């Protein structure tokens, strides 16, 4: 399991905690301050929604949380493990063992069938579910032998969800997972995420521009100018099907 321990990431604890996370992009002479000191605590097993205007730093934060990128300042912990001091191999190991990603553009491998795209993850995961089960969870078992080019956008995104949940991840990080989908398809995707949260206890972080989706969250972070401007706690999260699009 490398240097990333799962201790403290169990139910009741905090999945992620951060203090003063900052991210500055330097291109030539210009500096863009994408994150300006983010403090946060994400409890294990919750669904978290990040809202905020374009350019406010949501994706930047998500990428740092997922170990795809590094902050320029501040500290980030996953459970007991300080992610900000891991080397590249350990960060990779962290992603491999704990994180599932879903992006707006599905990022499927065009040369692999739906099932093989899922197997890409189950091949290397510690305790994965069978690829077919993951596809069944998103209702695409009958399309297992189809290539991405033979699937609709919504179907492709569901394959991406199946690929993300197949490893039974501790966290699912979703950057505008429904951005390219219509409401009916979007809801199917969100249902799959909620199901993973419910059945596997996965912590789910969703970035979205659709304020309606906030209704299904346990907690909502409102982003503004590289900071968390406001945190809302939802006592009664709604079912995805009840979301007004």
């Amino acid at each position, binding site marked *: 399991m490398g240097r990333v321990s799962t201790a403290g990431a169990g139910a009741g604890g905090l999945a992620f905690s951060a203090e003063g996370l900052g991210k500055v992009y330097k291109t030539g002479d210009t500096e863009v301050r994408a994150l300006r000191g983010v403090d946060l605590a994400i409890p294990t097993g919750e669904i978290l929604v990040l809202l905020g205007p374009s350019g406010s730093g949501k994706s930047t934060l998500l990428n740092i949380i997922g170990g795809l990128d590094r902050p320029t300042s501040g500290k980030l912990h996953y459970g007991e493990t300080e992610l900000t001091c891991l080397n590249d191999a350990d960060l990779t190991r962290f992603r491999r063992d704990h994180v599932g990603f879903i992006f707006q553009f599905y*990022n499927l491998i065009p040369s692999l069938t739906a099932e093989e795209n899922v197997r890409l993850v189950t091949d290397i995961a510690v305790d994965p579910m069978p690829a077919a089960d993951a596809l069944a969870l998103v209702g695409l078992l009958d399309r297992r032998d189809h290539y991405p080019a033979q699937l609709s956008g919504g179907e492709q995104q569901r394959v991406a969800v199946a690929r993300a949940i197949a490893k039974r991840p501790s966290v699912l990080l979703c950057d505008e997972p429904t951005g390219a989908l219509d409401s009916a398809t979007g809801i199917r995707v969100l249902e799959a995420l909620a199901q993973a949260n419910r059945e596997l206890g996965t912590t789910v972080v969703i970035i979205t521009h659709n304020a309606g989706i906030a209704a299904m969250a346990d907690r909502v972070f409102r982003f503004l100018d590289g900071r968390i401007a406001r945190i809302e706690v939802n006592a009664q999260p709604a079912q995805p099907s009840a979301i007004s699009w």
Partner: protein
Amino acid sequence: MRSLDLKLVRDLWHLRGQAIAIALVLAAATATFVMSLGVHRSLAETRDAYYARNHFGDIFVGMTRAPRSVVDRIAAIPGVRRAEGGIQQYATLNFPRRVVPVRALLNAVEPDGPNHLNQVTLRQGRLPRASDPGEVVADEAFAKANGLAVGSQIEALIYGRKQNLRIVGIGLAPNFIYALAPGDIIPDDERFGVFWIGRKALEAATDRTEAINSLSLTLERGASGSDVIHALDSILAPFGGSGAYGRKDHLSHAFLDNELMQLSAMTRVIPPVFLLVAVFLVYIVLGRMIRTERTQIGLIKAFGYSDWAIGRHYLKFALAIALLATVMGTAAGIWMGDAMTRLYAQYYRFPFLYYRISLSVIVAAAALSFAAAALGAIGGVRSAVRLTPAVAMSPPPPPAYRAGTVERLGKAAGFSAIGHMIVRHIARWPGRAVITVSGVALSGGLLFATTQFIDSSRTMIDSFFFRAQRQDLTVTFTEPRNASALYALAQVPGVLRVEPTRAVSVKLSNGKRIERTAIESLPANSQLGLRIDRHGNAVALPASGLMLSSQLASKLAVRIGDRVDVEMLGGRRTQRSLPVASIVDEFVGARAYSSEQTLESITRDASPVGAALVRIDPSARDSILTRLRDAPMILGVTEKAAALVKFRAMIDDNMLTMIAFYVAFASAIAVGVVYNSARILFSERAHELATLRVLGYFRSEVGLVLLGELGLLVAASLPIGCFVGYGMGQLMTAMFSSDLFRLPFAPSRASYGWSSVIVLIAAMTTALTVARRVQKLDMVRVLKGRE
């Protein structure tokens, strides 16, 4: 137009690695072309100028002895411009503190000025004066090798008499550009020298007052050489004429011709390989470039640029690469040509020989590389021209992967998802896979075809020096001797075995096919001189009839059982018809063999001994050589070990230099092909590879997707490379073979191994450098876009 040119410069900079890799392959073509054609020209032009300036003869003939007056009769033959008779006499030289046998060929020069034909070019000093019979001009290479200078004295044994010679000049002549002692196959400047001595002095020393034993002549423009040869032979028949021959049978000329032939073979075989590979590289790189720039092309066209402007833009990209290649290749070619020419100058004696850079060669080389680049660009340029703005700006059709045979096979084989990615990508771009595989295979083939020349020469050395020639020394007598000479030799302490041998010059003919050669005879139970076939086995001499070398048999178009007409040259000029009893595959020369009895039936004499093959006790070598040096009846002693050393040195110098060049060039192909495939592969898959990194694949695992595909292609190309190399090697040994040498095609397993290993190393280091780019994959950026 300017902004497009700016884009061109940026594109070239952006793709500089790939552009340079292609340029390297093209440059290899240019370099080999400039080198081999340039050296060929330099040699041929130098030779022709030398021949013309020093009046090299057109026809040559030797005879036992003829009165000088015969020269005038010969000069009167229609078609003869000028004839000149002279004396050529072998002598042995005695260097006081050396035991090695040193031989010299003495040539008569007119006392009152230079000869008209085969003139000596003096480097130092002057020609011998009639007043002093001991004055000689020594050939430059021999003088240099033995530390002789004007004023040096040498003791010579001429015609059985000791005589002191004094060097008054150092020079060289066009009939000894390549100077070989009789029986040698490689020049040995230390042990064989050419001397020019006053005619009267040589006449006196050889008892040939107002007589000649050799003659050269030049022809009038347009005169028929064969008619003159015919007339010459009949005039000289009573004087023991040994058959006139033209330049093609003149030893020095033939060797030089052989070299020129090999150079032009080189020019014809090797550059085309590089050009072909470069065409395909330009094709795939430009193809990929245009696919990725579809939208840009659409935009530029929508702005109003013409189709032709776009086409020209991509064509310019290819031509810029050709320009770079021409510059690099020309520079390398000139450098290599100069090195090669220096090598040649060690073996071929010219008054001047330098690598002449000729503009026309460079222009031709440039034309070839520009043509190859343009040819490679045609496909891409055409698709760019055809693209309409509307089609170009819509997103490209998604790569269509469908369930196919490969995929079913993969499933059956239980591939991992990564395995499927690798295999399907190959199947998705079969054209590119074929180009990569064949490019790497050609590289391996070229390597194999060049390294096998080492095997080839080893086989030749082994067959010629070790299996066929079992003697240590060959002792030639001043004139044919009887068995008592052999007996005398056998009495020398340390001599283990002595066998007589004899060679008689003959003309063999089968209808219109006529070949000048020698028939050699050996005793029936010979242990020192064996005839070896291509499998390395000794073949017994036939009791009757002739044994021909396969070269000779094919030139005469005869098979076993056919008859050939044998005409003895010199002596009695008897004619006989003999059956071909066997054919033997030999690598050196094109000769005929027979038993002593068969040869006697041609010469009609009781086998005199011309030479003896001698096996000695190595520890007695020095004392034996000293004794032989002082024996008056001995014309010369050849030491096999010395020839072997020279031969190996020539292979080391010459062949290894060439092979080093070609190893570098062949690796350039592998590097060029693999680098371009890898970069294209990487740019096509960057998005997928970044996705794998996001999913938690380690860098090494992601690199494996890249290396796996390349590795599969390279692995597939290795056996194909051996196959291609086998064919190329066979072709090249055949093209390099001549009347003088036939190169055996006898590749060793090591050559297959080496060429594969070198290709593998070149290919995989290149692939690894590209795979290192995985380190810099920006996962975040990649995930922002669609692709």
